[in-house]
């Protein structure tokens, strides 16, 4: 059954690859296939090997298949209206989908790595669809290299496990990996953690993410941000937490720290962006951080042998994974619509789009509220779970460890608040107010609007009724086979339905009370001057206070030049330039890059030209070796 379904997905995707006209339909079909497969696996529970160990299906994988399926289905639907009929997309998109599915259902490390690398290369070609635009190739290249780095770490980690267990089958790993010695587990944790972490975009390996995601076409960005980076989380949970079981207590704390740092820095960098898609990409880093906080809680639970805490962390991270997939793909799809609608994504040029594309605007608002974790949307539930997990860790430990846990919770709180600011900014400057520049308005087809709205609706539904889906998570195989009991009261104290009902009813009552339909439009107040669009706050001015507050992170710079004849006193024109310093790029990656080039140059010095030197190498080496013999 499952094997048949996998085969069907393969065939559908391959058909799409062969034929450009078929591509849309068959991608949609294979996406739905993935969704169904995920549902089947999840409902059945447990794990099974399929096709002589080529595929290995676990409940965790089932959950990630659903995550992938949802995003893929919506992106495929969205593609019907998305005016990008390039050959690149029609060939590589099915392969990309297929490889992501195969990563999840892979049964041994060879299949996994093949799928993983195929995923990298196909997404690289998708990212560079518009290679003629400046900067795209560079972004794609950085993405490719970072991905390969990740693949190599994963390879090393797999080899470490495989050489210890003398098998590369995941089913065997699941059974025996927990018996490995602790020192070996540490090595595996380091290698696989780095490998999967780089691919999911943790700080400081995040630099590829804000470059690669924005330049890709919108459905691709949605898939990459919504599904692909989640596979890193899948790897961490499957191999490091579930398979390895109890390990050194140090590691969950590292995961928590990495999560907090990624979350905070991700949102802080997002705040300074005025390109909508780059902003969303930075938010992916933030959300990966939040998911990792949940993962860390799960790890702490495993190490403390606390099934309830383990399950809390698991539920928090997995649910946030799904939620982020939903609202992030929704936001990316909406951003794609904005781009097609106006031809730009620069928040400093846009404004008032809620009047020209109300459907997308409402979808974006729903997504913004979900990503900011506001009730009654789904982000609220998963962040609530994460908070609960962190505060539980904090309150069950003493002094320093307690402070650490509380600090993490506070970091998450700060992250949430900053995300709020960022999305007030994003939604406010792009969809509200008066247009800042005159931009064209192309009509958006309904097939681009509806996926965005459906995803918004899905967010809302999951925010109000999270319990059924969370119950499915009880099947995820953990070595501490408890947690099922705690499932029921996990969400008992957050009465999502009550709160949602109160909120909707209250808003309706007050809206009726204030008679919103009777309100007349009048000119706005601007101290008596004639108001114009430039008086509005822009993206940069909105976040000025945050920029100064976090100056130690941003290292902002500004330059004010006075131009004109009597420049110092009466300037004709002022030239203002400002920005922030990309710290990681400047202080880590640039020097590293230069260093590698220098070493490379140095290594070719060996090949200096004169044949007598070459002969001297040869004879010298042999002489040296003979001298060693005794």
């Amino acid at each position, binding site marked *: 059954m499952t094997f048949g379904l996998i085969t069907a997905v393969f065939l559908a995707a391959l058909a799409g690859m062969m034929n450009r006209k078929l591509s849309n339909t068959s991608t949609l079909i294979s996406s739905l296939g993935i969704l169904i497969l995920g549902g089947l696996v999840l409902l059945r529970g447990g794990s099974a090997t399929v096709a002589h160990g080529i595929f290995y299906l676990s409940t965790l994988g089932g959950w990630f298949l659903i995550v992938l399926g949802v995003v893929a289905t919506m992106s495929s639907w969205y593609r019907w209206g998305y005016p990008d009929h390039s050959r690149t997309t029609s060939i590589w998109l099915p392969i990309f989908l297929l490889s992501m599915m195969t990563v999840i259902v892979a049964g041994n490390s060879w299949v996994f790595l093949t799928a993983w690398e195929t995923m990298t290369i196909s997404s690289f070609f998708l990212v560079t669809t518009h290679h003629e635009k400046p900067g795209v190739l560079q972004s794609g290249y950085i993405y490719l290299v970072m991905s390969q780095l990740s693949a190599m770490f994963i390879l090393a980690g797999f080899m470490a496990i495989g050489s210890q267990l003398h098998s590369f089958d995941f089913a065997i790993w699941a059974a025996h990996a927990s018996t490995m010695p602790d020192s070996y587990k540490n090595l595996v944790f380091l290698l696989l953690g780095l490998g999967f972490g780089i691919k999911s975009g943790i700080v400081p390996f995040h630099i590829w993410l804000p470059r690669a995601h924005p330049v890709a076409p919108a459905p691709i960005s949605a898939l990459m941000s919504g599904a692909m980076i989640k596979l890193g989380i899948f790897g961490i949970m499957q191999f490091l937490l579930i398979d390895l079981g109890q390990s050194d207590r140090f590691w969950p704390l590292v995961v928590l720290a990495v999560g907090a740092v990624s979350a905070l820095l991700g949102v802080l960098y997002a705040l300074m962006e005025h390109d909508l898609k780059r902003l969303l990409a930075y938010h992916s880093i933030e959300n990966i951080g939040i998911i990792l906080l949940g993962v860390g809680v799960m790890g702490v639970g495993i190490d403390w042998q606390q099934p309830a805490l383990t399950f809390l962390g698991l539920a928090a991270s997995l649910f946030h994974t799904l939620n982020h997939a939903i609202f992030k793909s929704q936001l990316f799809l909406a951003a794609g619509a904005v781009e097609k609608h106006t031809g730009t994504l620069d928040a400093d040029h846009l404004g008032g789009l809620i009047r020209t594309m109300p459907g997308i605007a409402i979808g974006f608002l729903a997504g913004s509220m979900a990503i900011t974790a506001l009730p009654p949307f789904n982000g609220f539930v998963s962040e609530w779970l994460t908070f609960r997990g962190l505060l539980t860790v904090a309150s069950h430990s003493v002094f320093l460890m307690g402070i650490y846990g509380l600090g993490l919770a506070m970091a998450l709180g700060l992250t949430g608040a900053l995300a709020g600011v960022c999305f007030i900014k994003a939604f406010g400057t792009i969809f509200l107010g008066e247009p800042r520049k005159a931009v064209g308005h192309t009509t958006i087809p309904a097939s681009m609007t509806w996926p965005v709205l459906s995803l918004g609706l899905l967010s809302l539904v999951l925010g109000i009724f999270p319990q059924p889906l969370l119950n499915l998570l009880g099947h995820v195989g953990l070595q501490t086979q408890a947690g099922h009991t705690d499932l029921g009261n996990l969400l008992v104290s957050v009465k999502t339905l009550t709160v949602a009902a109160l909120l909707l009813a209250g808003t309706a009552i007050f809206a009726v009370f204030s008679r919103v339909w009777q309100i007349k439009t009048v000119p706005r107040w601007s101290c008596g001057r004639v108001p114009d669009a430039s008086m509005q706050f822009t993206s940069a001015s909105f976040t000025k206070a945050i920029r100064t507050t976090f100056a130690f992170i941003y290292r902002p710079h500004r330059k004010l030049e006075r131009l004109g004849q009597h420049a110092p006193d009466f300037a004709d024109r002022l030239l203002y330039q400002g920005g922030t310093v990309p710290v990681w790029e400047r202080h880590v990656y640039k020097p590293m890059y230069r260093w590698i080039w220098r070493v490379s140059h140095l290594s070719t010095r060996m090949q200096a030209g004169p044949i007598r030197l070459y002969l001297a190498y*040869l004879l010298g080496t042999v002489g040296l070796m003979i001298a060693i013999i005794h």
Partner: protein
Amino acid sequence: MSYYWSLLGPLALSVAVTRTHNNADGRWHKWIAIWVTVDAIAVMAIIQHGLFLGEWRAIFIAITNFVALTSAWDSIPWLKEHGSVNPTRYYFLWALFWGSLLAISLSQNLALSWLAMEFSTLASAALIVEMGDRHSLEAAWKYVVIASVGLIMALIGIVFIYASLRFQGLLWTTLDYSNLQNHYQSIAPVVRELATVFIVSGFGTKAGLVPFHTWLPDAHSEAPSPVSGLLSGILLGLSLFTIARFVGAVPVAAGDALSGSHLLIFFGTVSIVIGSLALLVQHDVKRLLAYSSIEQVGIMALALGMGTPAALTAGLLQFVFHATIKSSLFYGAGHLSVRYDTKRIDGITDLASGSQARSVFWALGILALAGLPPLGLAYSEWLIISQLWIQHSYIVAFLTSGSLTLTFAALTHHLIQNLWGPASPSPRTHPTSQQRAVGGVV
């Protein structure tokens, strides 16, 4: 014994070629290619039994013939592009080179392997000189001198081994690998160690192990592309496997620092690191491929150095994949450099907007070389790395993994440039090889 029939093809060809008249139209080139193809198929029929059994010799012959036949087919367009090359001489030398490669593959005897290898040097060097410009002269000179010195090293080792074994009364079969294996214990350990050092570095020179590789980038980049394919794809691997056969037959006591496997692993690692580092700053497309060969040979050396059955299989796989991929890339590089009139990587740009087949071919080849699954080489490399882990050679494993990443980065860097790079303003700014030759003479 029947394997020796495979030498008939090259010999017949070399004789037949001398009978041809050097008329302008190259119609007979096609017949040579057909002859090589037919011969390859016939030999395949002879050796198929051994092939199924996984005999090394059979595999070597098969892969040598396969690359030779592609080289023969590629020679037709290549000769058309390079009118200044004398086809008769070219094909004569080519046939000798092919024959010497087959002889290395076949050889069951250390001394014969040595001889065949020496002849392969001479034949291929003569082919490089056929290009006729200053660069190729320089490359060929370095190639012959360095390779000869290296091979003399190997010969010193062989003399030691022979001198130790001549009392066995086996006469000239003393140096058969099987006899070596049977009698190696009568060789004093120190002699074994000394001979291993000489033979590994001697044949290692032909295999292109760093620091004996110095001739390799020059020779491979200046040779005619069809010959570069054979040089890089076949000759390097065969030299390495000759070392492996010797090392397998005459093992050094396990505790010795300079045992064959240690040397192979050491030089292999150094080759991987240096080869991958050099990739990043290359300007010449064929030099790029040559350095990548050094790196690949290093990986093979690791596999052969470990010597476990799994590692040997992986090494063999690596050899086969590398032979097919690298040779086709060399052919492609030759045609591209003629088409764009430059061998500079930054001159060969914007492939993607041209013929689709060409860009797909090039991209697939480079990506395969970069170690991207499911394109062959990735798997053999992974297998080798897994063997390193199993043997607990962590440092080597990390160095190899790191270098593979670097290789990937460098090759894709150049690939992106090739596929979509900005079209160079005037494609004719770089002098062609013929112009260079003329300039050199003037």
